């Protein structure tokens, strides 16, 4: 099966808390030998960057780099769900795809199940891909309209050279587990509703019995009554198939609901990472606080005071110096423009990290910040 080759000793930099404090630099070799518990870590990312060149003119000259993901360290433990939340353009989907090497990282280390993903190629990469799958938001765009559900779901098995008759058994089995009937196998994607198509997407991922699934906004396009069906299904399937999820979404309540730990991203960086409970109870980063307070809750009378951020997210082509959030931050100080804050623990224990010089400072309600835009 998998050729475990060239295991990098660099993951030893992880100290066990799930996160290292180095943000932008790739950690150098640990020095003290291998870390104590890489067994629990399914996926480990160190200093992952993904830049896209910005080209203009007829000569397509590269005039800049869009820093979609700019130095992310993340450990995902076996059996947990990590949520990745942020607004559009923060790099959360790019990070998810880069971790699977669907996008080639610009820099950084990615280890999956002890194997350095970046060094894999050809057959080994294909074998590895079996264990890491992705479910997309757009169930119309990601399912070929000319293929039947049987072929769509069986496609991965075909690529991995399973015989047709075994394939069909496996397809029917997985369809049943995602809540679709056997007769669905003969039909085409357009004959299904959005929620059912999302189940087909899940079946496609699950049929290969992966260890890890990146779910990229899997419920964002669905109506609420269907959203809850799919969320419940994701929770059940995780148990049943011993899965580990990276759940990418913009809806904080949904991410918090399904995740054990949540990473908040802003402009290509993780700004806060904590367990779901902890993040909601004691948000440390002002951006997390703003996200929480902006979330409209269907509870009338609970009209909390809002932290209304001024302006828009700056361009990731030319991000602000120092802390990237400072241009919209209600508590920004001169130091924030000069020194980039590291993603480090504060008073809340080692597992709650935030990248802010003034982490935990309560935000003044209605605080106005000079409009930099």
């Amino acid at each position, binding site marked *: 099966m998998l050729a475990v080759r060239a295991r990098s000793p660099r993951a030893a930099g992880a100290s066990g808390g799930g996160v290292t404090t180095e943000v932008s630099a790739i950690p150098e070799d640990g020095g003290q030998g291998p870390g104590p518990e890489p067994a629990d870590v399914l996926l480990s990312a160190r200093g992952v960057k993904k830049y896209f060149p910005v080209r203009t003119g007829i000569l397509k000259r590269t005039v800049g780099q869009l820093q979609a993901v700019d130095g992310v360290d993340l450990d995902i433990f076996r059996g947990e*769900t990590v949520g990745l939340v942020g*607004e*559009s353009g923060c790099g959360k989907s790019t990070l998810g795809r880069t971790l699977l090497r669907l996008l080639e990282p610009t820099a950084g280390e990615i280890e999956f199940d002890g194997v350095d993903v970046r060094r894999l190629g050809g057959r080994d990469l294909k074998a590895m891909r079996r264990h890491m799958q992705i479910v997309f938001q757009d169930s119309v765009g990601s399912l070929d309209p000319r293929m039947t559900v049987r072929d769509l779901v069986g496609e991965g098995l075909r690529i991995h050279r399973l015989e047709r008759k075994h394939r069909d058994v496996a397809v029917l089995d997985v369809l049943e587990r995602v809540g679709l009937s056997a007769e669905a196998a003969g039909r085409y994607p357009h004959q299904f*509703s959005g*929620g*059912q198509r999302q189940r087909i997407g899940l079946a496609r991922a699950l049929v290969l019995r992966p260890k890890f699934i990146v779910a990229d906004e899997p419920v964002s396009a669905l*109506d*609420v*009554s*269907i*959203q*809850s*069906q799919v*969320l*419940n299904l994701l*929770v059940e399937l995780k148990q049943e198939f011993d899965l580990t999820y990276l759940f990418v979404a*913009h809806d*904080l*309540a*949904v991410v*918090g*609901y*399904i995740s054990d730990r949540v990473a908040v991203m802003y402009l290509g960086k993780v700004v806060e990472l904590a367990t*779901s*409970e902890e993040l*909601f109870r004691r948000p440390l980063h002002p951006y997390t606080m*703003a*996200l*929480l*307070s*902006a*979330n*409209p*809750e*269907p*509870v*009338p*009378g*609970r*009209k909390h005071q*809002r932290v*209304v*951020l*001024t302006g*828009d*997210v700056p361009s990731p082509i030319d991000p602000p110096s120092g802390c990237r959030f400072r241009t919209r931050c209600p508590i920004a100080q001169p130091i924030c423009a000069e020194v980039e804050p590291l993603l480090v623990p504060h008073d809340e224990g080692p597992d709650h990290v935030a990248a802010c010089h003034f982490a935990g400072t309560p935000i003044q309600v209605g605080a106005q910040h000079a*409009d930099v*835009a």
Partner: protein
Amino acid sequence: MTALLEVEGLRTGFDTREGFLRAVDGVSFEIAPGGTLGVVGESGSGKSVTALSVMRLIDRPGRIAEGSRILLEGRDLAALGERELGAIRGNEIAMIFQEPMTSLNPVFTVGNQIAESVRLHQGLGSKEALDRAVEMMRLVGIPSAEQRVQDYPHQMSGGMRQRVMIAMALSCNPKLLIADEPTTALDVTVQAQILELMKELRERLGMAILLITHDLGVIAEMVDEVVVMYAGRVVERGPVADVFASPQHPYTEALLDSIPLLGMRYSTPLRAIRGVVPSPLEWPTGCRFAPRCDYAFDRCVTEDPPLLPVPPQESACWLCEHGRRVPQVRRVVA
């Protein structure tokens, strides 16, 4: 005559080979001057067609069926001709849409487009109209409005474009603003800005708002009265606080219970509504929610429940025939 807008028995549908396909099937509601009403429903519930009908923006093969009444201060919009409608649209009723990019013309500056509506509706000259555009842009919180009035839509962010749409809509002091999913395409922090802006402008200008959205959270923040739609019908309506605290229709109850609130965890499964919203081609007989309802009994399948009074709400459910029922909302408010 207290209501600003009174919609009565609105039926809007589309002429197809199979006959008249109803998307909105007998919807009634009213809005007081300066009031706020939210229409909430999932896709296919008919909420957007309702909004478009009020604006009379339904194009063939769609049409508003006879017998529908849309009364704006007593005048029946459903019976007006195009010319008279032109005087009302933009002037007395204005509308903003979900996607400001497609509603704005990419080849004109935003200032130009705001000015155009002022010129058209209020007969101002070009110079005054442009001044008014700057004034409106300032009102909706666009920084350095004098410069940005020269911007083209693509030079602005989604939030700014929605502000331009609001500026345009409000430039003629409408009595009613219809907002169809105004923040659905926006990020939460920008959505918060736009919602705050709409609230503030409503207080300042005193217009009524008809807000169409699928987002119960936005409804809770923005409006006083809510209409819940399902399969072309109103299933429940009443004051937001009452409807959300004690939903009388099983659909409202299930909808509220299916949304994760901040702080809820996966150890508590969410309420799922089985099945899917039926298409207008296959609306069931009797109560349209009955096939998906946890409480349905024989009568629900045969007889269509009317809106029954359960003060301060109304609910189209047979369980409400003898007064309020106790909803089983399990939501834990953290």
